[in-house]
């Protein structure tokens, strides 16, 4: 007969602290290994349920937290009738245009600049101070300057978003330059590569994982800044919709606007994750 206590194996704490055994064909100890899809679905459903329960039991006033049904109803109403005389999809489109316009611009300028800063001490010396200077400043703080300099038109809105996306993209590209192993660079040189070829065939591809991550982080900052940008004399856009609804205490519209922004941003992030899997399946593997 075995001792019943010892046959239970190690204590709960010890078992939790150890890496879990793997399924056949999986590699032991890969950090964060495992599928989270169903858990995430369950988490969303539970949160929705709590939201519904809190409102259905009347624990908070609808002014503070409207019920899910009220939000859905508002969504259908705005979808059909528009908001402040502008169709709903136009609000969505104009905001998306602002964010993605700024994002593409930031990529077009930020990626080459970041790579150049990683490659050349001259470029790093020149551009490091201004970027590091403005990077930690909240966009709301320099919003007035944008308005004074560029007026209340589209320019200052896109520019404000651009600035918030620009810094993380430059920094990502810049540190991505360091990803290539020196042996990989040497291999290229020993085949007679020029500096430009080393850049194109070794440094750029090995920087891709960091560049993609920087783009994901960057567009996140873009959406964060959207509402601030649309504080400036906007008459259209999701940020404008949320802001003006909040002035009239239309909480359902505020929550709906937040959801729409979140869903678009999340959709794009899924696209970026898909691209990451397709473009850099080797990330962290060599």
């Amino acid at each position, binding site marked *: 007969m075995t001792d019943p206590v010892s046959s239970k194996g190690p204590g709960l704490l010890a078992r939790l602290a150890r890496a879990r055994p793997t399924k056949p064909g999986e590699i032991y100890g890969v950090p964060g290994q495992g599928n989270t899809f169903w858990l995430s679905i369950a988490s969303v459903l539970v949160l929705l349920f709590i939201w519904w329960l809190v409102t259905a039991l009347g624990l908070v006033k609808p002014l503070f937290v409207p019920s899910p049904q009220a939000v859905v109803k508002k969504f259908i109403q705005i979808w059909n009738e528009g908001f402040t005389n502008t169709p709903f999809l136009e609000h969505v489109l104009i905001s998306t245009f602002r964010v993605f316009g700024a994002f593409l611009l930031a990529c077009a300028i930020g990626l080459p600049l970041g790579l150049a800063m990683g490659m050349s001490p001259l470029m790093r010396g020149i551009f490091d101070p201004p970027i590091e200077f403005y990077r930690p400043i909240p966009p709301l703080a320099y919003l007035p300057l944008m308005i004074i300099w560029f007026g209340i038109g589209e320019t200052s809105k896109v520019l404000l978003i651009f600035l918030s996306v620009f810094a993380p993209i430059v920094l990502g590209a810049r540190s991505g330059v360091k990803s290539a192993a020196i042996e990989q660079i040497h*291999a290229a040189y*020993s*085949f*007679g590569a020029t500096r430009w070829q080393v850049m194109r*065939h070794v440094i750029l*591809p*090995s920087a891709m994982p960091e560049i993609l991550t920087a783009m994901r982080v960057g567009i996140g900052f873009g959406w964060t800044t959207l509402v601030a940008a649309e504080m400036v004399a906007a008459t259209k856009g999701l940020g404008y919709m949320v802001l003006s609804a909040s002035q009239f205490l239309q909480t359902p519209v505020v929550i709906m606007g937040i959801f729409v922004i979140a869903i678009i941003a999340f959709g794009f992030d899924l696209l970026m994750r898909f691209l990451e899997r397709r473009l850099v399946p080797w990330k962290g*593997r060599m």
Partner: protein
Amino acid sequence: MSLKIDNVSVIYPAADGRPPVAALSEINLEIVEGEFVVALGASGCGKSTLLNLIAGFLSPSTGSLVLDGRTVSGPGADRAVVFQKHALLPWLNVIDNVAFGLEIQGIAKQARHKTANEFIQLLGLDGFQNSPVYKLSGGMQQRVGIARALTCDPKVLLMDEPLGALDALTREKAQELILKIWGETRKSVFFITHSVEEALFMGTKLIVMSPRPGRITHVFDLPFSRLFQSGAPARQVKASPEFIALREKVLNIIFADEEAVE
């Protein structure tokens, strides 16, 4: 082709509060055309450093390296390198890794894949052309690295423990393959290994190095690879009394070195 290494020292500068490292001290070595030089020595005695010097990745603190009458001042396509580690490009599949040197040299895709395929077959990697390199075993990755260096037909082949991750059988085959290619093309080779047997079997010249400061302590001329080239079976060469006697002698030198260090 001839390479003359004249009184070369390398001192890695002090960093993070650690003192400077005298990685190589007063190295003199000549590699003539068609010579197969093997370097042997305890870990950290400066073998890779010497290879980096010849490749042009590092410049000497004192002394000079002269290749065909010109001072070595950087890497070039006349010297191909098989690296100790981390030198394949994970975003390329096997065939494009092997063809990488040819791509750099502007060879058209079809032509470079044709050449790459020859070496892929030579190294027993057939069927893996389209596999991503990060999914290969360590030994297969090493063979991709060797194939890549060979495709460009360099005058000098610099190899840093190229067979370290291979199993015994594949390793012997790869040794014979390298000897065959060397015999056919008269390349000059600088070859680093930790295996005394491999060193004796493959080289025409053996240098034994010793650490702190890294220096060449012994030089032997070796007859065995020529015996193999003229038709003697590898196993027979390695079992000959001369081979065994020299192997014991070199092992004694190396063990004495390692004990002196400890």
